[in-house]
């Protein structure tokens, strides 16, 4: 054991040096390390996708005995070609925090007591039955995650939507990706990016929209920087609301006022048309024009309802709509100089340059998230820069399986593994594959995430099972939802690997197997499905989330739907799930192929992966004889939408005079429940902070590290100031990373959301500051 620990520490030491080298010298490679491990003969290496972000880097996990001791980038994985970021290199240490949950606990007389996991699962099943008997099927819910494996999400949907007949299935990807989904669905009629990471090796111009890639997608950003170094004709534009590491590394940093990206995107289209940079051949053949409702609200009230109404437009009507968005007019709204708007338009409009736009939370966590996704697609469609190597709009994912588990399996209230609950054919398909009587699936969606927790607060939902996520840190306007979860006659089950503020509100805690302690599959940002086998045993009684659901389903009498054995259930589930996606638009690779490779991109047809969709050279779903085929929409065209600029739900005023923006840092994953337990990552950034512009800090009389109270109409939090740190907001704005549960910034945020996607806006609300 002593030898193991030492070997583990030496690997950690080497990993930290590699991570440091990687951040200083992008593209640096240490493939020779393989020779080192051969010398010791102690370590065997197994492939897996990284546990953390949606980039989906392939890693090789070094195992000594029963313990994972090291990580290196998988040189065979095309995503990262052997590179990792600091989180990836230290990821296995997240398995071994001292306070891992290894036994089940249930609340008795107000105290959590340990019980055998079988007893806890009996209680969970009995409580689901009792709650349905008393309050109806829509009083029970499951809330999962973009970190659920694909089988986790699939069995959750099968049990709740299929067997129990309630559409109370949601996942935290609603908080990070749903605007991307509704953006794709409204513009293209089908979800997920048309391009792939290989675009990076072809593009001449990268425009990042509110996206700090250097910290959030560092391996992809390194690939961009390596391309800029290798090729002379590469330029990076960082279009953002604050200066970050990405701004520093970019060729040009352009700052805009929060929410005004809507106006700037329209102004870019205005300029493209005014200068006749429109690709008329492409537009005439492949684009149609549309408008929807305006003044669509912000979802602040309970039971808020919205349904958009599409109307066709002519090109001339669209052009007239853009009259309000001249660069000069938009400069006044956005603070972006007209010359910079014209510069971006000229880059998109240059027929020689290949342009890739990247975005992630900045555009998705937005009360007009669907609209801003549409508007960036508009730019690419007007100039025909889409679905070809190096040219395309690319919506990046935050979580490792937001695409694989939530978007593809359909673990959202309205969705099914194929299509949606409202569609009779889709329901019939699911009932057939799931071996359920016709009519088992309810045609009406119930609650999206924010409304689900409002329903828990109101008492419409009485039982909720939370897996692989930490909503008592991440929900906006947190106080209401925490108090709701703690109300009498609410029953909360939490499956997790460490104690969190969410396990603090639990009536039952189930110990979960984490990442490589179980077999699983993720799906990353570029339609790549990634399989890994169980590499190390889980601790104590920890059990995979999939198996927990299967155990409960069987206790509820659904043995027929969940018949698999513990040794083969993942492969069987995958092959059953794959039936939903048969056909050239979404065919998934067989289990045997996924086991062998470091990820496979769908559509996987006749043994071939699809790198660019809607382009017949690459995409087998396109009709032959066309140059492009946007087969998702009923008119076989991509849709350009006239979407106006509308203000944020809450903007600074005289009393609450600062914008609050929240987000992440490179070292920590989401709420920090894993990475704060990794010594190297904890020591790198041991605490959250509030970034303040130096002049605002001087006005407040605070210096670096002094405590500042951030107050909104909903709550307050007091935390240390960071002045001229790694990120610098403009005057009148502050930024807070949300990874630190000791500073619950979501006590302060607002639960306004995009009325179309129902995704909350974590990037904008009004606060005031006081020196604490």
């Amino acid at each position, binding site marked *: 054991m002593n030898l193991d620990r*030492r070997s583990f520490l030496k690997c950690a*030491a*080497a990993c930290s040096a590699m991570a*440091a080298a990687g951040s200083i010298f992008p593209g*640096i490679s*240490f*493939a020779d390390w393989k020779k080192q491990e051969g010398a010791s003969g102690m370590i065997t290496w197994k492939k897996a996708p990284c546990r953390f972000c949606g980039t989906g880097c392939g890693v090789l996990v070094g195992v000594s005995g029963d313990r994972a001791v090291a990580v290196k980038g998988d040189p065979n994985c095309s995503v990262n070609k052997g590179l990792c970021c600091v989180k990836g290199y230290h990821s296995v240490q997240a398995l071994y925090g001292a*306070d891992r949950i290894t036994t089940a606990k249930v609340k008795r007389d107000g105290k959590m007591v340990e019980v055998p996991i079988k007893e806890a699962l009996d209680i969970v099943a009995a409580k689901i039955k009792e709650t349905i008997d008393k309050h109806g099927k829509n009083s029970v819910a499951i809330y999962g995650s973009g970190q659920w494996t694909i089988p986790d999400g699939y069995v959750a949907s099968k049990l709740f939507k299929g067997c129990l007949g309630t559409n109370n299935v949601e996942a935290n990807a609603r908080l990070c990706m749903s605007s991307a989904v509704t953006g794709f669905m409204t513009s293209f009629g089908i979800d997920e990016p048309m391009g792939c990471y290989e675009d990076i090796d072809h593009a001449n111009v990268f425009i990042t929209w509110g996206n700090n890639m250097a910290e959030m997608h560092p391996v992809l950003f390194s690939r961009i920087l390596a391309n800029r170094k290798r090729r002379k004709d590469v330029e990076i534009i960082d279009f953002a609301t604050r200066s970050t590491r990405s701004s520093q590394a970019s060729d040009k940093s352009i700052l805009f006022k929060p929410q005004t990206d809507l106006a700037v995107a329209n102004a870019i289209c205005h300029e493209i048309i005014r200068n006749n940079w429109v690709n008329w051949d492409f537009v005439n053949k492949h684009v149609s024009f549309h408008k929807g409702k305006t003044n669509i609200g912000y979802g602040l009230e309970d039971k808020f309802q919205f349904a958009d109404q599409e109307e066709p437009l002519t090109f001339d009507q669209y052009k007239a709509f853009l009259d309000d968005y001249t660069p000069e007019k938009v400069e006044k709204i956005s603070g972006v100089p007209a010359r910079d708007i014209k510069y971006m338009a000229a880059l998109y409009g240059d027929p020689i340059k290949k342009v890739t736009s990247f975005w992630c939370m900045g555009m998705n966590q937005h009360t007009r998230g669907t609209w801003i996704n549409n508007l960036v697609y508009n730019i690419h469609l007007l100039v025909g820069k889409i679905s070809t190597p190096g040219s395309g709009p690319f919506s990046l994912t935050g979580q490792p399986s937001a695409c694989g588990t939530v978007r593809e399996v359909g673990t959202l209230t309205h969705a099914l593994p194929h299509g949606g609950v409202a569609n009779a054919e889709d329901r019939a398909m699911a009932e057939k594959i799931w071996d359920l009587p016709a009519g088992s699936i309810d045609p009406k969606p119930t609650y999206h995430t924010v409304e689900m927790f409002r329903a828990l607060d109101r008492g419409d939902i009485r039982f909720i099972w939370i897996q692989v996520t930490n909503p008592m840190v991440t929900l906006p306007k947190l106080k209401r939802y925490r108090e709701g979860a703690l109300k009498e006659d609410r029953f909360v089950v939490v499956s997790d690997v460490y104690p969190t503020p969410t396990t603090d509100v639990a009536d039952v805690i189930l110990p979960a197997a984490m990442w490589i302690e179980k077999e699983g599959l993720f799906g990353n940002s570029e339609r790549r499905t990634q399989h890994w086998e169980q590499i190390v045993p889980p601790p104590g009684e920890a059990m995979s989330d999939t198996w927990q659901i299967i155990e409960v389903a069987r206790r509820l009498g659904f043995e027929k739907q969940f018949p698999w054995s513990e040794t083969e259930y993942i492969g069987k589930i995958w092959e059953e799930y794959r039936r939903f996606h048969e056909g050239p638009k979404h065919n998934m690779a067989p289990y045997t192929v996924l086991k062998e490779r470091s990820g496979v991109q769908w559509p996987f047809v006749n043994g071939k992966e699809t790198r660019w969709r809607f382009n017949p050279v690459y995409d087998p779903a396109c009709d032959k004889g066309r140059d492009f085929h946007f087969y998702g929409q009923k008119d076989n065209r991509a849709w350009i939408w006239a979407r106006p600029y509308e203000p944020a739900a809450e903007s600074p005023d005289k009393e609450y005079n600062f914008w609050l923006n929240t987000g992440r840092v490179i070292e920590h994953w989401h709420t920090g429940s894993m990475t704060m*337990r990794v*010594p190297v990552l904890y020591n790198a950034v041991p605490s959250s902070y509030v970034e303040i512009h130096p002049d605002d800090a001087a006005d407040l009389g605070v210096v670096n590290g002094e405590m500042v109270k951030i107050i909104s109409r909903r709550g307050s939090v007091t935390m240390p100031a960071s002045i001229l740190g790694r990120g610098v907001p403009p005057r009148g704005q502050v930024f807070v990373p949300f990874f630190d549960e000791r500073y619950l910034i979501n006590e302060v945020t607002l639960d306004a959301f995009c009325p179309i996607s129902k995704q909350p806006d974590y990037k904008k609300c009004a606060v005031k500051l006081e020196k604490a």
Partner: protein
Amino acid sequence: MPIFAYLAIPVEGGKDTLAAELTALPHCEVIPADNKDILILVTDAPDEKAERNLQNKLQKISSLQSLSMTFGCSDQPEKERGDHES
């Protein structure tokens, strides 16, 4: 029982010499980068005295331009933290 990791930068053209010299020292493992003039040095001295000796030897290597430490640990199981409690 200290374990340290460093980024080792050689003097110009001295990467191979530095790799050989560091590998020859006791308690040292070297991982050279494939595509940059940089090496990773992991040291694993059994005690403080051996560590001091090693440091003295490192200072005398002429092919070494600079060493920057990225990791340091004394191999005593540290009390691990439960952040949720703080």
